[in-house]
């Protein structure tokens, strides 16, 4: 584990696939009765264009800080046991896992709410940029769908 990932290790930026087993390990705590997870997978199309794969560029030092902060906010807002998240960097193919979030909690309400909170915040706040490769077309930086939200969010 690099120094940058060592902050708590519960949020990480990964340059290669990480096993589900490794991601899930910190969530197995005694009081946890429910577990909710979300994964983002690379789709084969985006807005009608056939996608071959994509690259994620990550501002890693800031992403790690912001990711840890999002997890900490989730722990404060919801009655959860633990929260873990991972975002991929580098080249991904169709079907690959781009993001993983796992939350364990005594009860399912909190697990669902915290998991949803974390993915929503990651999508608007984490300094990560997606460039898609299309079948028979130039790669393109994907336009932001959350621009308004992203910039009112922490004003």
């Amino acid at each position: 584990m690099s120094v940058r990932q060592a902050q708590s290790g519960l949020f990480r930026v990964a340059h290669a696939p990480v096993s589900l087993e490794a991601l899930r390990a910190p969530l197995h705590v005694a009081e946890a009765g429910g577990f909710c997870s979300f994964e983002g997978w690379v789709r084969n199309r985006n807005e009608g264009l056939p996608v071959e794969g994509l690259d994620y560029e990550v501002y890693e030092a800031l992403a790690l800080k912001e990711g840890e902060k999002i997890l900490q906010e989730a722990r404060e807002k919801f009655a959860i046991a633990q929260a873990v998240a991972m975002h991929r960097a580098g080249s991904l193919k169709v079907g690959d896992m781009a993001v993983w979030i796992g939350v364990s909690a005594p009860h399912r309400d909190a697990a669902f709410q915290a998991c949803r909170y974390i993915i929503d915040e990651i999508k608007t706040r984490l300094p990560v940029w997606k460039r898609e490769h299309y079948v028979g077309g130039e790669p393109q930086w994907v336009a932001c769908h959350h621009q308004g939200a992203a910039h009112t969010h922490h004003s």
Partner: protein
Amino acid sequence: MTTLRIDYFAQLRELAGTASEACETAHATPGPLYEELRARHGFPFKASQLRVAVNDAFVPWEHPLADGDVVVFIPPVTGG
């Protein structure tokens, strides 16, 4: 004059043609600095579309710049 490093990501990196550049500036805050860089590199974004980080932490646009600061202008993010 303040001596800074500017790091670029994604579209800004491609348009600047570099991931990082040294910069001497008389601007006291990131706002006018971005306008100068935008004119020089042809960045498509208005400052209102961006966030700014100094030394790996988000800061307000009025944050005072100091010698040795690393400044990053953050284009709209598309993770997840």
